[in-house]
C-alpha cells in the first residue's frame, strides 16, 4: 500500500486523481504517518526548488545583450 501510495504523490498534488482515488489516498495518509511524512518531504523539495534564485547577469553578458539590442534598433 505505501509502495503504491508514493507513486501517486505527483498525481495527487496535480489534482489528477479521480475523486475515489483521492479519497483513498487521503485516507491512507491519515492512517500512515510515514506516507504523510513522505508527502511533506516532497512538498519541501518543491518549496526548496522554488527558492532557487537566478544569479545576476555578469557585466559581459549585460554588455553583449545591450549591444544586440542597439544593433536591432539601428536596423
Amino acid at each position: 500500500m505505501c509502495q503504491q501510495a508514493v507513486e501517486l504523490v505527483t498525481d495527487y498534488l496535480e489534482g489528477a486523481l479521480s475523486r475515489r482515488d483521492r479519497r483513498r489516498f487521503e485516507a491512507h495518509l491519515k492512517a500512515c504517518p510515514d506516507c504523510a511524512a513522505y508527502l511533506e518531504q516532497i512538498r519541501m523539495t518543491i518549496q526548496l526548488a522554488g527558492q532557487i534564485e537566478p544569479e545576476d547577469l555578469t557585466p559581459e553578458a549585460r554588455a553583449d545583450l545591450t549591444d544586440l539590442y542597439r544593433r536591432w534598433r539601428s536596423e
Partner: protein
Amino acid sequence: MDGELLSRVRTGDEEAFVMLVARYQQPMLRLACSLVSNQAVAEEAVQDTWLGVVRGIEQFEGRSSFKTWLFRILVNRARSAGAREPSEPSIDTLRAVDPTRFDAQGQWADPLDRWAEESEDRLDAATWVPILKAALDELPPRQRQVVMLRDVEGFASDEACAVLGISTGNQRILLHRGRSRLREILDAEMEKS
C-alpha cells in the same frame, strides 16, 4: 510585469530590454544546458533566442504569455542546435522510492526521517538550496527540464507542456520521477548531517 517591459522595449527603451533579459537569462541558460551538448552551444541558443525576440516582438500578439513564447523559442533553437545524448535511467530506477525501503507487504520497513521539527516547517534555505541545485544537475535532462519549469520557474502545467511540446501525462511522469529523485538525494544528505 512583462507587459509593461514589453511596451517599453517596443518604444526603444534599452533599459527595459536589459531588465527583461535579466529576468530570464539564467533560467533560459539552465534550460538550454539541459537540452544541448555543451555550455557554449547553450549560450548561443540563448543569444539566438533573444535575437528572435527582438525581431519578432512586433508580431508577438500576446495570445500566450510572453514567458511561454520566450521559452518555446528557446526550446526550438536549442533542439535545432543539437540535442544532448539522452540518458534516461533503466527501468529499475524508475520507482519513486528504492524498493528495499519497503517490506514484503509494501509498507515502509523503517519509519521515515522527519526533515524538520514541527515548529519550523521550512528547511533552512541557505543550507539546502545549494544541495538541491546540485541535485537538479544530476537529473536526466527531460526530468530536469520539467522540474525546472514547474517547480523552479513556477510555470503552470499547461505552460510547461506548451514550452516542451509534451503531453500532460508525459509531463506528469517526468515531474514525478524528477521530484522523487530530488527528494531521495535530499534524504540521503539529511541522513549524513
